[in-house]
């Protein structure tokens, strides 16, 4: 899509304190970019206002009940998905005759009247900072992508949305806005890519002060690349795909690839403790960060050096990582980069059952030979991936045929209703990849796993990118669905998967869900001491009056079950508002008190009053 958009590296006009004679800059002119950033100020021109992703990409159902993904952005785009219809009807009981179309645009009349602090607005105007009070601009920044937010966009109205949107251009403008906010006691809610799934962007409905959404999308400049130290310094608003594309031109990457990387921003990753698919090679966000510039009501918080490690008391970066907009705004980040891998290869392994796969992943983690990504899908998810197989599969070897062949020859004895598939992504030099493949497949063999080809692997990863779009299709046909995740020690991984799935099924049954729910999980990351598990859960809500409430109640039960099974409140989605009630239990009274004390020191007026995490009564 964005090939025409060229990225400039812009230095701020302020002099940067740069240390070291060995630093070699890719500097660029400090002139302002003429071309618009990838994501325009009027996001709604490019992105759906009431669903996921680009306006042009959407799962549609044709008159002859064929499902396909519109647009040209994705590998699936424009291909008919003949198996999907049968799958959704068989598994979730979706009948394409029963549609639940979304409401039309939410207009100014449906939106609460903004609370305006005129002096603040005047000062912002005087400072030359871009802003808007257009109702669509404000509405777009009133939500993230949890089920209840999207459902509200489709079916309801908002009690409270931001009263003003500002687009600072650089760090100094952010400092300016925060100072004004403190001066006039105005609330700031930082907005990055808007992909949150924790309710973090929702405005506290009872907030009487003016709420300003601080949109960082215009702060998308890469300020310098340091090839000696392999770091890049960029503004917080740059989104994942742009960062990687720019770096790729120079032969580098950060390697940080969360599923939301098309839309999510560097600052957002820091503020939520993000995790990327390829963390096995590149680490999670906290492993990549070298320096953070953080604007708070108390002033700017940052370290005076860019060192690989430091012993200087508790790491102030860890106050910032995962602070979810409660303490301030990340404005600039120095992050590690790596040379682009020479070779990138997908792979997959079929296991007779999920538990063999878990055993295999555990062993791979133990031997520390995990490839860039390894994910283990349970049978339900494997079936789902399979249902997404396009009609035109001349390029792909037909999985079904391949699988049949497997059955007859090697896989005899694998039950298609039980088998489980691990998808793999290898990166490195050709030799490294070959060696890794060999080792991983050898371990897999010990657990009854058999290599099942690159296509199946790639399809698995495709599923994660398209799943967010599929949720919109589901909503169109009376299905509420969402994902949630956790981290868990290895010894409890299998029990957790089993018990949480069981709990979801049972709660649905007990609470009168008429159709069998779709419940599936995958072990999506491996660590030395445990794993990250990712669940999808959805059900057909025909016959239920308050589906979102029911969904949230059941998901709450599932989280209780997760915690009872030794799992965590979240691996990378964060706490936001939807998981606040488990925070105290997670970190204890003292832990929570410490967070509150930090908040009280840094932001005594509660300017960053988005009500996330530790704010307020839990």
């Amino acid at each position, binding site marked *: 899509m964005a090939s025409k958009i060229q990225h400039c590296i812009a230095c701020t006009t302020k002099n940067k304190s740069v240390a070291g004679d060995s630093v070699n800059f890719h500097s660029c002119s400090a002139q302002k970019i003429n071309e618009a950033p990838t994501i325009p100020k009027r996001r709604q021109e490019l992105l759906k206002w009431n669903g996921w992703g680009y306006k042009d990409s959407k799962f549609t159902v044709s008159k002859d009940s064929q499902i396909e993904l519109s647009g040209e952005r994705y590998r699936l785009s424009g291909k008919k998905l003949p198996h999907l219809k049968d799958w959704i009807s068989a598994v979730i009981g979706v009948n394409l005759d029963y549609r639940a179309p979304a409401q039309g645009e939410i207009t100014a009349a449906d939106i609460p009247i903004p609370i305006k602090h005129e002096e603040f607005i005047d000062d912002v105007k005087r400072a030359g900072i871009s802003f808007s009070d257009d109702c669509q601009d404000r509405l777009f920044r009133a939500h993230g992508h949890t089920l209840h937010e999207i459902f509200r966009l489709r079916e309801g109205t908002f009690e409270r949305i931001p009263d003003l949107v500002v687009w600072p251009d650089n760090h100094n403008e952010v400092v300016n806005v925060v100072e004004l906010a403190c001066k006039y006691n105005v609330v700031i809610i930082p907005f990055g890519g808007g992909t949150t799934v924790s309710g973090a962007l929702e405005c506290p409905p009872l907030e009487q002060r003016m709420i300003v959404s601080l949109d960082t999308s215009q702060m998308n400049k890469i300020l310098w690349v340091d090839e000696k130290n392999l770091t890049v310094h960029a503004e917080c608003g740059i989104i994942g795909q742009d960062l990687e594309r720019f770096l790729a031109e120079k032969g580098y990457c950060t390697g940080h690839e969360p599923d939301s990387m098309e839309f999510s921003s560097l600052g957002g990753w820091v503020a939520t403790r993000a995790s990327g698919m390829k963390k096995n090679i590149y680490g999670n966000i906290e492993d990549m960060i070298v320096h953070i510039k953080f604007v708070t009501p108390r002033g700017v918080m940052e370290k005076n050096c860019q060192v690989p490690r430091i012993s200087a008391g508790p790491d102030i970066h860890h106050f910032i990582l995962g602070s979810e907009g409660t303490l301030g705004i990340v404005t600039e980040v120095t992050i590690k980069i790596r040379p682009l891998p020479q070779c990138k290869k997908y792979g997959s392994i079929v296991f007779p059952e999920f538990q063999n796969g878990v055993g295999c992943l555990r062993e791979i983690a133990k031997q520390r030979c995990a490839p860039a990504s390894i994910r283990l899908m349970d049978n339900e998810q494997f079936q789902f991936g399979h249902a997404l197989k396009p009609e035109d599969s001349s390029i792909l070897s037909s999985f079904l045929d391949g699988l049949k062949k497997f059955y007859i020859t090697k896989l005899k004895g694998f039950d298609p209703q039980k088998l489980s598939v691990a998808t793999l992504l290898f990166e490195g030099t050709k030799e490294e990849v070959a060696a890794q493949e060999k080792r991983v497949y050898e371990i897999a063999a010990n657990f009854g796993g058999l290599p099942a080809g690159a296509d199946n692997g790639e399809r698995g990863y495709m599923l994660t990118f398209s799943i967010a779009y599929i949720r919109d299709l589901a909503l169109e046909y009376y299905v509420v669905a969402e994902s949630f995740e956790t981290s868990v020690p290895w*010894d*409890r991984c299998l*029990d*957790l998967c*089993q*018990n949480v799935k*069981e*709990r979801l099924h*049972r709660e649905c049954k007990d609470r009168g869900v008429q159709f069998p729910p779709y419940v599936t999980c995958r072990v999506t990351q491996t660590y030395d001491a445990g794993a990250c598990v990712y669940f999808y859960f959805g059900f057909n809500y025909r016959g239920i009056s308050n589906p979102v409430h029911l969904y949230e109640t059941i998901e709450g039960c599932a989280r209780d079950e997760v*915690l*009872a*099974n*030794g799992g965590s409140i979240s691996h990378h989605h964060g706490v936001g508002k939807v998981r606040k009630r488990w925070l105290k*239990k997670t970190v204890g009274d003292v832990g929570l008190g410490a967070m509150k004390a930090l908040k009280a020191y840094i932001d005594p007026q509660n300017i960053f009053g988005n009500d996330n995490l530790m704010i307020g009564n839990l």
Partner: protein
Amino acid sequence: MEDHEQSRNAWITKDDPKLVSGKHKDMFDDILDDRRHSSDFRWFTRSRDVPNFKLNKPRSPDEIKEHVMNSDRVKYAIEQVCKESNLPLSEVTIQAKSILDEMAHNLRLGAVRSFAYFLIKAMKKLFKRIYVNDEGVQKVREIIKDYPVLVMPTHRSYLDFLLVSFIFYNYDLPLPAIAAAMDFMGMKFFGWLLRNCGAFYIRRSFGDDQLYWAVFTEYVQTQIANGDNPVSFYVEGTRSRTQKSYAPRLGMLQASLETYFKSHTPDIMIIPISISYDRVLEESLYAYELLGVPKPKESTSGLLKARSILQEDFGCVHMFFGDPISIRQYSDGKVDRSSHNLAPRYIASLSQEEQELIRSLSHHIILKHQKNMVISPWSLIASILVQCKEGITISQLIKEVEWLKRQASSIGGYIDWPGNETAEAVTRHSIALHSNIVRVSEEDIVELLHIPRVSTNKTDPLFQTAAQHIMLSLYRNQLMHIFARVAIISSILNGCRESTLSIDDLYTSYTFLETLLNRDFIFQPGHSKIDFEQALLTLTHSCGVIVENKQVLVEKSVNKHTTYFSQMFEPFLIGYWILCRYLLSMDPNVHGKPLSKPPKSIIKDAQSLSARLITEGVIRHYEVLSLDMMNNALNSFYFMGAVRKEKRDGITYMYPSMTPLSQITQQLVKCVDVPPLPSVSINVDAKTVTVNAKL
């Protein structure tokens, strides 16, 4: 039966209610009926459609054992034992292996089939009908697919073990692995057979033998978590010799439920099963056991001797499968399973909340058991006869039985009273079934028979008579749980000397008696207030007790109901009082502390005192000779601080603590009329009891 002619509709050929088949009765079906009319051979060789736990990975008994030996828990325990005992790893491993070999079952369908064949023959001989509530069994069938199941039957006879397996076989349910006591294992052939039919053997006590604990816990838990078989055990721990529910034992339940608390399973379902016998196989054995005649060791020849038993009629059995109890629902909001997140799950641990929950659950299960017991008419008859030791005319007996039946029903007991028979027919039939205990004389007086017991000349004739009375009381005990709460209140009212008694004072006395008696009767911990209010309501609504302005009008309230109920309780209160008197007599006033004795000799001595008082004619309740009652009383006194424990050479000794003991005695005397005993001295060494004063 011949055709009857009173049919009003042509298509009804027989509408005489007496012609209703005995196969169906309320919610029960007789499972023997079909077996009497079709081939046993085909029944036990047929293919069985057995539901299986959905998360089960099929394993053989040997694979289960292999898992146990390789488990983290057992490895950890072996390591610990090695450290502490300095024994080599190999030796401790062998120890663990032999514990496991001694314990493990070897459930095989082949053995089960032949066992089933033997069982069906025996059951048909022994019992007229075996009634099972079909609906309850169907619930188990469904639930077994979704959750691990614990089967928890009442335990009042050896036959419980066989009946549960038999019913599970009959209904195509997976055969349960049943925790059995070691004494079964001693039986040569049966020990082997039962092992092959799913019995696994648990030592009675293994204290702090951590290797045994680890093997036992892992063995039980892995079978629950994987749902290999339903696991069956008795919450009462052992057969109830008294036919009342025993206070729960928690060890097995703790080991089982830890599986859920540590989130190995999504839930565990507990199926309480109530097994009611018209006539208990071991009735006389129990009577002598309660009196302290040593219990013969179970042996195959003993069981073969029991063949003569096969010639006798033991009436009907009722098995009621209670509603499954979901441990997840039961513990919802009461325990926090994440408290186990900070240590490996193989290190045994239960939180305080979990232990309390298990205690409360164990009582809950027993109360469910009781609620689902079927009360036979004979229990009603026995209850009357216990109070009329000199005999009673049959017409009076019938009147009293019908009265008692109404009381029991209105409080919530399920009485197995055939609707199509006259009260007299039912009564005479019941008496006939128990002709070894009572008879109807030619003058139509119902009276107790003497039990001839020639083989043991040593047995005191007093004890022979006592045995007969105790046997009768066993059947009365079968319905005591229904009346326990109202009887406590009635006893207090009956003993009250004032004209009014405030509800608060009544409640205080109620909690005293509840605490005192909570080993003889089962009360849900923490439910005293609710139980009290419920019982008082019953008494005011249907038993003529009058409450005005939060005061019970005592004189107006004492009536047939309260008198009968308190008389039901009298033997227990007298028994406890005797132990009080005995313990009080231990005060030597010389060295500042009463002499310590092992609990067993205290109980025996108290029994001697009872014997003496009965012989002297002071006491007329032979039941007070029961060692079980004395033991319960002693334990209660201990928990109430009236008796203290100390260890001497590793053996437990007990001695009374006089102040709390006299307080208990005083309170007790308020509730029951006791004979005047101005002072009693007991010569312990000579094993004789001398009551000084004139009685």
